[in-house]
């Protein structure tokens, strides 16, 4: 039995995220080639995941080195805050500097802890907020270009985020 199509898509996207985390240039067109045909007619969840990855790849490709570093810190921060169980995994010893996506999941790091993996000691969340704004703008632009509608409207009323 093969993995279902959605799982294959998720696996392909995660491989790109792993590359972005390591600072490998990821061409958005390469993402298109591999994943786009599979997501056009799929669920909103798939679409969002795809657009998010593509927007992150575009930022990594077009922005300054400082922004790209902030993006990589953010990838650690985001993935460390997926699948977090209270009281679990915080004691797990992980070498963050190895930048392995799989090791990071569930660590529940703070922004500062994630930034320290790159030797950065942030004073506040301003860099993170700036990145979020850029990413949101890029996502909206790509959503409109690809699906022909406004992202905010498309997501309105759809429960795709966290409670």
């Amino acid at each position, binding site marked *: *039995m*093969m*993995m*279902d199509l959605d*799982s294959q898509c*998720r*696996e*392909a*996207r*995660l*491989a*790109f*995220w*792993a*590359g972005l985390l*390591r600072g*490998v240039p990821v061409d958005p067109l390469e993402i298109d080639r591999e994943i786009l045909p599979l997501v056009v007619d799929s669920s909103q*969840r798939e679409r*969002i*995941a795809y657009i*998010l990855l593509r927007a992150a790849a575009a930022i990594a490709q077009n922005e300054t080195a400082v922004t790209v570093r902030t993006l990589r810190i953010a990838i650690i921060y*985001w*993935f460390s*805050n*997926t*699948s977090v169980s209270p009281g679990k995994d915080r004691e797990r010893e992980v070498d963050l500097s190895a930048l*392995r*996506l*799989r090791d990071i*999941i569930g660590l529940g790091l703070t922004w500062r802890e994630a930034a320290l993996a790159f030797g950065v000691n942030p004073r506040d969340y301003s860099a993170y*907020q700036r990145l*979020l*704004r850029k*990413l*949101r703008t890029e*996502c909206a632009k790509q959503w409109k270009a690809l699906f022909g509608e406004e992202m*905010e409207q498309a*997501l309105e009323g759809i429960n*795709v*985020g*966290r409670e």
Partner: protein
Amino acid sequence: MSVENRNQEGFERTLLGALDYEITPAEGACTCDVGVLVASLAGELSMLEEDRLAAHLIVCPACAKEYASLERSLQQETERLTSEARVPSLASQMRPKRQNEEVAWRYLWNTLRSVLPRGERQIRGAMGLALAGLVLALSVVLPLHYLGGGSATIIAGDGQMIAKGEQTIESTDAAIVALTPRSLVDKLDSLAGYEPWRATAFVIGYLRAAGIPLDSASLVFEHQTTYITQSGDTWRTVAQEALADGDLWPIIILLNHNRTQHGEFPPVGTILRIPALAQVSK
């Protein structure tokens, strides 16, 4: 809170929800090649391949479990062999080891690759052979590290010596010399479920007890061939035919014990795996 801030928070929630979705475990089994897992542990994958494997292990709990199990086995074997090795003398530490280490690891990987053909899903059996190969190689690597020389010799199919060092694998039951195909297969079956590397150690021990010391026997899985069974064949005749020595029949069984039940010789037309074997002396 401003509208902009609310939108920003909403976007962050959507983003985290999307990433939660990305790491959801997949339904059902996969067709992953266990050889890729072994290759990763052996440091043989490119960074791109590592990324793909990492992604796969996130969504595939079965492979993640398999990978963790392989990783643990490797770690335990390394620790065991390390603890068995004697404390190195200053002189042995000063010998150049890097080259020997590299050829030993290359031997390890070639061994693993040959016993784990792409696409084969018989993970348990394959893993047994893989770990057996791993132990063989580690038993060369570690003595090379700690003893810096000795009597074991691993020789490639073309006769070129690729590693030399003292062999530390001990037989689990070296005293058994009256081995039969049935008792060997039963033994291998009983060993395969746990600590599969003991299967190889057991066969090595038998061969040593039978007067074929591993010190001078070279099992080279790298150039593996096949043999199609014919009418009148037995384990011994196949060993005679394929390895030029009927006494080496346990090696044929070691590589093919999943093709037989209770040691019975498989039917005519069965494809057996045959390792290339170089320089065996009694």
